[in-house]
């Protein structure tokens, strides 16, 4: 039956019409021999639930399709969806590429899959409860002890530790594929810290941009309810009553860090690294700008092994010392509990059918890939005998000598020498290996730009534990192979992903019941800005402002040359160069170059620490660890800035090129400033960004005034007005040429000029007064006294005050203020050190 709606009526005639339209898209779509296809049945006819979708696409025509798919791509590019690739030479990030045709799944099919996965989640939870508790499965002979002890995720310090809230698993995922028999098969279980929910969400947002009408008409089920369920279930573990939940990330170097930041933003959780947390007593606390704040719940994306250097991996610098002790006392709930990764081991698949009968009393509803553990004599012999029909994998998902880089290998692909090595290994350490059936995947259509073509895929489905049982996300993360090889083993590096649409039989419930993703409430309590985030925001502000000052200086430098043809000998130009030199923006290897070449070097040289590229990279690095705090637009402005600054420039750049580059970069910085102040909720975080910018702007403006504010250097007062961006204000106020007194008054003292030093100092005072942790009954802290002192200085100053000693003093106080803010609110750069252990 068509799920019609957007083609007029659902009568006989429109169904015929739909079919005809659908078939027009299918020209040249050849299913793979012996492989099931999601879209076409065995006779090459579109399956009924695909027909309306195909008709809709066919009805749009190629031009419209390109436009719509293009808008999805733009969305993903703009939101900066990326996946960090470790094996990339530069450790670079690559965008996640979206296949524009969603995987369509019928309600009844989905219901059966869901019910099988819920049973599986319950079973794996029961397995963890047993293995970290009485281990009856082992004692009673259902599971050999070596199949447990061999896993790196059997965490001995956690044996006997009851997880807070009573559960190990709160978020579970399974990788499934559909076999030639039409059934869904489980290929792998993800229980440690399943990734992909965030990517699924981004794909969904992109696709609902491209095909909003189609998704509605097909009754695509929404996924926001799933995230709400997860959030609500975690919220119930919070006993502070402050609704604080952390998302524990290994940090920006992790391959899925983008997703951590995205989820933290979307769910309203605090994105924290190990360094942000500290155990006091049996409680976990987050270091915030307002002091330590207890945190009861952590959604964990950090692998368990790294979680506590005291009792797990002593070499971990990412964890929280004492975390395991806090867990023992029930002081913190981790989702998932440490040690949950144990049930991911492929060896478990060999025993799970038996364990299901034992623990649940019923057989597994969903089949999983046939697996034989080579730690047992009979199974080992079987595997050797049928080697050509099997895949050989690590029993515990870790590197094993005979397997290529820790992955799996097809028995049939082994050379004679490799077979001998495998056979020796099996005889000695069969416990390390499993033989598995070769799973074959079904194919789903991908859009090549002109037509559809079938590609094998694997689907990751996510489940969240709630009070009322497991909830399945109606959708998922679909990874699509780049080749037509349908054996699951070839899909270890899928390079495309697709949205997954579960098509309800009836119109899906109104958005008021199942809110669309955009309407999920984001809550962030203002008192819990982690110190590390504040530190990075502050420095982001300083780097961006320094970049702006550097740009303005280079622009003036180029402008001077263009206007007057100055050579390097002019006193003004040497002052400009001197200031850039003092900031380390000037390459040393350019002695006696023309000023134009200096300007270009400042704008483009990547190897000079104070030049623009390095400043922008530093800004981006500071921003990347607090990505959860930026709107996608503000983030995009930073990415644009980097792109602009890093773009190649002519081999022999003209002054016009340099001018253009500086203008473009300044425009982006202006956009970033606007977006940051408009879009970042004006909470504590924004104030630290502001403090950084204001402090840096005050310091640069003092430098400018000092360098260009002297008598007798032609053009220098005009240059000062330019670098301090105060020309228009000056002209509107004084109908005369630049004169030292009025110019310095405007740039340094005028509290109404948003570029003046006085203005910066006032704003800093405003921010510092309202930061959390300020005790208004106590005497004012040192930083407030420093601000008061600067205000008094600025109020009392006249044009005659501006001697070198005055500038020195002001700059010194500003530096001191910056240090004071850092000492009080940030981590002070004291990272924990490991003590050397004893040599025996």
């Amino acid at each position, binding site marked *: 039956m068509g799920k019609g709606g957007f083609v007029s009526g659902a009568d006989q005639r429109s169904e015929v019409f739909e079919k005809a339209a659908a078939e027009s898209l299918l020209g040249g779509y050849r299913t793979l021999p012996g492989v099931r296809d999601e879209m076409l049945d065995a006779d090459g006819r579109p399956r009924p639930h695909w027909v309306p979708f195909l008709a809709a696409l066919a009805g749009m025509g190629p031009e419209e399709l390109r436009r719509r798919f293009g808008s999805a791509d733009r969305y993903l590019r703009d939101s900066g969806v990326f996946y960090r690739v470790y094996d990339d030479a530069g450790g670079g990030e690559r965008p996640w590429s979206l296949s524009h045709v969603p995987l369509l799944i019928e309600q009844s099919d989905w219901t059966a899959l869901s019910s099988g996965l819920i049973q599986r989640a319950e079973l794996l939870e029961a397995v963890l409860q047993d293995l970290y508790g009485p281990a009856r499965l082992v004692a009673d002979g259902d599971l050999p002890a070596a199949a447990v002890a061999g896993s790196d995720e059997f965490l001995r310090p956690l044996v006997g530790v009851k997880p807070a809230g009573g559960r190990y698993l709160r978020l579970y995922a399974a990788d499934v594929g559909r076999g030639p028999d039409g059934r869904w098969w489980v290929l792998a279980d993800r229980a440690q810290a399943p990734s992909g929910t965030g990517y699924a969400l981004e794909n969904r947002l992109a696709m609902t941009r491209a095909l909003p009408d189609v998704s509605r008409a097909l009754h695509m089920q929404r996924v926001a309810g799933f995230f709400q369920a997860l959030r609500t279930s975690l919220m119930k573990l919070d006993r502070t009553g402050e609704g604080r939940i952390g998302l524990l990330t290994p940090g920006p170097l992790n391959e899925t860090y983008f997703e951590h930041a995205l989820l933290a933003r979307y769910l309203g959780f605090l994105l924290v690294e190990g360094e942000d947390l500290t155990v006091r007593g049996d409680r976990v606390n987050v270091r915030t700008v307002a002091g330590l704040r207890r945190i009861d719940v952590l959604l964990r994306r950090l692998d368990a092994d790294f979680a506590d250097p005291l009792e797990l991996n002593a070499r971990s610098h990412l964890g929280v010392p004492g975390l395991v*002790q806090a867990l023992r006392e029930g002081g913190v709930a981790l989702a998932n509990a440490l040690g949950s990764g144990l049930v991911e081991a492929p060896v478990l698949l060999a025993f799970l059918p038996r364990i299901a009968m034992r623990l649940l009393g019923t057989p597994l509803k969903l089949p999983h890939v046939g697996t034989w553990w080579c730690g047992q004599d009979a199974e080992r012999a079987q595997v050797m005998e049928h080697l050509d029909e099997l895949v050989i994998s690590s029993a515990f998902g870790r590197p094993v000598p005979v397997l290529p880089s820790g992955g799996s290998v097809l028995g049939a692909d082994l050379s004679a020498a490799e077979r001998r090595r495998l056979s020796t290994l099996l005889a000695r350490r069969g416990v390390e290996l499993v033989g598995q059936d070769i799973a074959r995947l079904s194919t789903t259509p991908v859009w090549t730009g002109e037509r559809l073509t079938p590609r094998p895929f694997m689907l990751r489905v996510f489940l969240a534990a709630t009070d009322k049982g497991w909830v399945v996300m109606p959708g998922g993360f679909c990874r699509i192979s780049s080749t037509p090889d349908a054996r699951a083993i070839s899909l270890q590096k899928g390079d495309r992903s697709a949205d997954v649409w579960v098509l309800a039989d009836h119109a899906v419930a109104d958005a008021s019941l199942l809110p669309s993703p955009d309407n999920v409430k984001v809550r962030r309590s203002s008192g819990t800005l982690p110190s590390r985030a504040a530190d990075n925001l502050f420095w982001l502000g300083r780097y961006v402002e320094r970049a702006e000052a550097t740009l303005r200086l280079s622009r003036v430098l180029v402008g001077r040359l263009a206007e007057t043809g100055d050579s390097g000998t002019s006193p003004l130009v040497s002052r400009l160069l001197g200031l850039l030199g003092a900031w380390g923006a000037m390459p040393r290897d350019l002695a006696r170059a023309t000023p134009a070449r200096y300007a270009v070097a400042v704008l483009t040289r990547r190897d000079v620490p104070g030049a623009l590229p390095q400043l922008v990279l530093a800004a981006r690095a500071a921003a990347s660890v607090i990505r959860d705090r930026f709107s996608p637009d503000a983030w995009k402005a930073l990415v644009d800035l980097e792109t602009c600054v890093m773009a190649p420039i002519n081999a022999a750049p003209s002054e016009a090129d340099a001018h253009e580059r500086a203008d473009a970069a300044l425009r982006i910085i202006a956009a970033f400033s606007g977006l940051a102040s408009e879009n970042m909720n004006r909470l504590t975080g924004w104030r630290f960004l502001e403090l950084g910018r204001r402090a840096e702007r005050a310091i640069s403006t003092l430098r400018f005034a000092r360098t260009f504010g002297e008598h007798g250097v032609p053009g220098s007062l005009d240059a000062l007005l330019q670098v301090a961006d105060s020309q228009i204000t000056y002209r509107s106020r004084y109908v005369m040429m630049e004169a030292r007194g009025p110019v310095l008054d405007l740039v340094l003292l005028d509290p109404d000029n948003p570029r003046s030093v006085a203005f910066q100092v006032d704003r800093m005072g405003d921010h510092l007064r309202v930061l959390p942790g300020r005790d208004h009954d106590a005497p004012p802290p040192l930083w407030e006294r420093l601000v008061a002192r600067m205000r008094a200085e600025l109020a009392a100053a006249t044009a005659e005050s501006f001697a070198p000693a005055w500038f020195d003093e002001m700059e010194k106080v500003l530096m001191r203020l910056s240090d004071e803010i850092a000492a009080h609110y940030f981590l002070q750069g004291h990272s924990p050190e490991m003590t050397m252990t004893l040599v025996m």
Partner: protein
Amino acid sequence: MLYDIRQTTSYSYAVPVRVARQVLRMTPMDRPGHQHVIAHVLDLSPEAAELERGTDFFGNGLTWLTLDQPHDYLQISTRSRVDVNATPLPEVSATPSVDDVRAAAAGAFDLGPRSPVHGLFPSRAIPVDAAITEWTSASCPGDRPILEAGLELMHRIKDDFTYEPGSTIVTTTPHEAFVARRGVCQDFAQVMIAGLRGLGLPARYVSGYLRTVPPEGQARLEGADATHAWLEIWCGAEAGWIGLDPTNAIPAGDDHIILAVGRDYADVAPVDGVIVSSGDHLLSVGVDVIPVER
């Protein structure tokens, strides 16, 4: 044999440490068939803000401590009285064959602390190594009694390797020590464990003390003893774990006092900790193992 054991471990820090969290594995425990702990005292200076005692998975004695006041040194002193009464070795030929031990370990249905399965797998500090495995396999034909194979390996290490303090550090890998054919007790224990595991035979790491006998006519020097390391090899369900000391080519007997057992050094490290400080630190350790006249 009855012993009084004193160990003093001192850290001194160039810059005061603000906060320290540490876990100590310095408390000897009762080991049925080997030793009984009569008394044990652990003193800290400065005193800890929080201190808790317990045992780990393998039954080793643990002390967790937190110091939250700035301190520029930390001294940990332990005093223990331990009665060691090692079980004599079983009849070598009566121990099960190498093949039988391998099958019994892989097929064990015991996940408890004394189970052979915990000694079966590569661990962080002792990965399985092809070269060591091949070297080991020469002593381990499938039908040979496991203890005979173990004793021969122990002697081969003693004969082929040079004991040379300072030639390795705590992070030297078994492979490096094997290639250099030199090292200290930790290296020898790790090499032997790596080889046995490579063949699917369970072995585990032991830290402890060794009574040293002063040269004839000389008095025992104070603090001259050292901490020691050896290994245990699993010899089937009946005989269980048997201690072998490849550094001295002797089975662990009445001179060996066990401090902790585990998969490798990481499980038994006397101190693991995290300190918040910006400076360097110095470490000194003094050990006295004094036999007590009955």
